[in-house]
């Protein structure tokens, strides 16, 4: 009952900011979850097959259901929506419930990114204001800054793509940085051995397929691989720059200055203005707002702004609201591009 009242209070707070309540399907096709979050997440799904052999699952969170609903409505009109309900995920911990109570709110099909990013953060702060928490911290980051930095560094293209792709997987990303430092990538012995086969394949029909790839695709990539510089003399220094960048943490109002000094020191041509951040003022004494370059690295589908609000409960800070912009999500699911920004409230915090 307590939880129901709280969720109604939060929904009221969200609706007061112009968000419309929607109902979401409890069941969706498993392939969408696989495309968004991969096999590692899929193992937590409650899935089953329908009579046509299609794999379905109980919704593991509400975001995908909401985005699918928007796509299926075939509209391009901007929508501000909110929803609440249960999501279902398997758990290996006896204490954890497989039912997750969630409240989410989103702006879909938005054209003015900055304005809508700000609206999502403002709504989150409004929920925080109406909540029982005394101390809190709002952390803001932006993946675009990291991508910009990588583009400006002098490293081979395949390394650039690799680092961007694995930004989300911190432990593997660190392993990649080590490899970048030592140039351990291509084995010259193997390249030599396969060159003879390469010449044979080149004479053959280029449209021939081998396990889903044409000869042309295989040979083009082989070519690209041997032509891309094997060693990068700046590997060590670039790795150091990336590591230092990801350590940047400062009060949000100082972020442009700190970032610009960092880029200047490392002779990187990037200038960050105040407008880059969706928030500048803080009127709440009990709220600390900070910029963190590595904020939200664990959630792969965000494409630029990422934020989280942590609240102090019994001397520990715990995640209360998290969100960000996910403009690539619909294309990852195999649909047209829809710009989207949103956030989710962790209702289990109240349990």
């Amino acid at each position: 009952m307590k939880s129901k009242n709280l969720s109604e209070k939060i929904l009221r707070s969200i609706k007061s900011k112009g968000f419309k309540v929607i109902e979401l399907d409890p069941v969706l096709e498993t392939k969408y979850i696989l495309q968004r979050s991969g096999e590692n997440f899929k193992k937590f799904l409650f899935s089953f097959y329908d009579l046509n052999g299609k794999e379905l699952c109980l919704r593991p969170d509400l975001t995908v259901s909401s985005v699918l609903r928007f796509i299926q409505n075939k509209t391009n009109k901007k929508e501000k929506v909110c929803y609440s309900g249960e999501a279902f995920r398997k758990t290996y911990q006896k204490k954890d419930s497989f039912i997750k109570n969630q409240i989410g709110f989103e702006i879909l099909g938005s054209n003015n990114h900055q304005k809508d990013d700000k609206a999502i953060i403002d709504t989150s702060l409004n929920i925080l204001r109406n909540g029982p928490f005394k101390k809190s911290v709002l952390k803001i980051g932006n993946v675009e800054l990291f991508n910009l930095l990588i583009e400006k560094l002098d490293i081979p293209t395949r390394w650039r793509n690799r680092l961007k792709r694995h930004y989300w997987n911190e432990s593997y990303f660190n392993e990649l940085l080590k490899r970048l430092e030592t140039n351990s990538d291509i084995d010259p012995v193997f390249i030599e051995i396969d060159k003879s086969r390469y010449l044979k394949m080149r004479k053959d029909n280029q449209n021939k397929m081998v396990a889903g790839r044409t000869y042309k695709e295989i040979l083009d990539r082989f070519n690209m691989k041997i032509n891309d510089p094997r060693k990068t003399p700046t590997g060590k220094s670039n790795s150091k720059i990336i590591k230092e960048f990801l350590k940047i943490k400062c009060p949000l109002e100082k972020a442009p200055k700190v970032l610009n000094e960092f880029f200047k020191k490392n002779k990187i041509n990037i200038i960050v203005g105040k407008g880059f951040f969706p928030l500048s003022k803080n009127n709440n004494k009990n709220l600390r707002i900070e910029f963190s370059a590595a904020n939200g690295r664990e959630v792969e589908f965000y494409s630029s702004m990422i934020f989280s609000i942590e609240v102090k409960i019994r001397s520990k800070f715990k995640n209360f609201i998290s969100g960000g912009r996910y403009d690539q999500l619909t294309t990852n699911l195999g649909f047209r591009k829809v710009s989207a920004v949103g956030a989710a409230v962790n209702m289990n915090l109240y349990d």
Partner: protein
Amino acid sequence: MTKNIINIGLPSKGRLKHNTINIFKKKKLNIYSERGERDLFGYIKKLPNVKVIYLHARECIEQLSLGNIDIGFSGYDLFKESEINVQNKILISKKYNFGNANLVLAIPDLWIDVQTLLDLDEVADEFKKKKKRLLRVSTKYPNLTRQFLYSKGVTQFQLVQSLGSTEVSPFTGTAEIISDITSTGTTLKANNLRVLKDGEILKSQACMMVSKLSSKKKGIKKLLNLLSK
């Protein structure tokens, strides 16, 4: 199952069965069946409180976790493939020098541009971006394969459950690459497949395992000691 009877699960076919029976023979414990070779139950004359049950090697692991058998012989690969909740209920008592095989990741030999997992990661990314679908990995070992690929940074893939003849999957349109168990690599080679340079997922061998639910059962320790010598 009767309380005082110790149930031993043995692989029901193949070299694993043969080699496991030899362990008993070496201890002068001859296993006999009452209804001939196809009988899936066996007994040991010298040990009247022991019942032998022939099971699929995978089933051995499941039954150990449920406590339906007390001691079981199976492959380390199958133990590691089982769910963590199952593994937590089983103890490995002894590893043997037979049933040696490796679980590996193999690709079509003609994918000459792919030598390592770093390459595979790039090809998987190509599949997602250009072909708008995930790279498919056919396997009888979804858990180990998933863990391994994620630990090596390959995340854009889809697992396809294989029930047998996994090696043909890349050439029948079922999947692009496979992970499978191999001891000499001959079958992979014969099917135009090649193991990735850093594609070894797990080294496996035959093991004697005991159900944690049975560890206090009368006579278990004595029997384990006898079989372990």
